[in-house]
């Protein structure tokens, strides 16, 4: 057994192994014993670093939240038109998932796990988009549209579903049905479709608005 690792390094290796296991099997599908075996320590050593499986899982979520995608660059560097900021945000979000697809797996697992900590966490990430869309559409949509409020709420849901589905297709499915389309191209096309659907017609999205990784 490898007992000589310094504590912070040990802690990191536990977090890394646990993240991969939670991504694969969900919160309930993983035991402390299994995580301990994965990093080649006894469970008692693992418990020195983390009180419980729950606490370990929450630490992983907090780490993700610390690395949270920042939309500051998008706001500062692009025009502040609704469309340009929305596209910029979407690209930043997609990039963060591309860098760590386990985040997406853990999100999907959490939908079925029933854990309130994780559902609040992921809901909060999407809230950036749904808030932005709701406020933006509220300002821009004509007031005489019937069922205006319902349309605005539905638009937020549609956007979230569309982006999350694209991420699932691109990052979680081994044989991507859309493999001829890069994630960049796909996301631009989806946002353009979305904007047409909500009546913000932009037939040509400014190339300058796209923040290349």
């Amino acid at each position, binding site marked *: 057994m490898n007992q000589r690792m310094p504590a912070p390094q040990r802690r990191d290796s536990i977090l890394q192994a646990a993240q991969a296991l939670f991504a694969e099997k969900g919160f309930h599908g993983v035991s402390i014993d299994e995580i301990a075996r994965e990093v080649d320590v006894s469970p008692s050593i693992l418990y020195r670093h983390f009180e419980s499986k729950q606490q370990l899982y929450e630490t992983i979520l907090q780490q993700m*939240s610390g690395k*949270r995608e*920042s*939309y*500051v*660059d*998008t*706001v*500062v560097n692009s025009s*502040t038109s609704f469309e340009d*900021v929305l596209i910029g*945000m979407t690209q930043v979000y997609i990039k963060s998932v591309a860098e760590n697809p386990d985040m997406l797996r853990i999100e999907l697992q959490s939908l079925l796990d029933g854990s309130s900590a994780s559902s609040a966490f992921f809901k*909060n990430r999407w*809230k*950036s988009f749904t*808030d*932005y869309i709701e*406020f933006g559409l509220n300002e821009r949509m004509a007031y005489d549209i019937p069922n205006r409020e319902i349309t605005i709420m539905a638009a937020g849901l549609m956007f979230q579903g569309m982006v999350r589905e694209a991420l699932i297709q691109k990052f979680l499915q081994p044989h991507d049905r859309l493999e001829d389309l890069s994630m960049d191209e796909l996301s631009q096309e989806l946002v353009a479709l979305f904007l047409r659907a909500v009546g913000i017609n932009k037939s040509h999205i400014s190339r300058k608005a796209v923040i290349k990784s």
Partner: protein
Amino acid sequence: MSDFDAELDATGLNCPLPILRAKKAISGLQGGQTLKIIATDPGSVKDFEAFCKQTGNELLSSGEEGGKFMFMIKKAA
């Protein structure tokens, strides 16, 4: 510091709305004037630090009071 020229209530809003609104509010100020921002998104602390660093506006203060975050930003001259 409790002196400010304009106030922005961004409570309940997630990034990027607080900084987007701050950007617009600041553009309406004169150089040297101060904007006070109240937010509830915990991410706004890092966001406003980055925002000020990137735009050259000065983050005079950043603090927490009763579950809300307060920021004072001075517009660059």
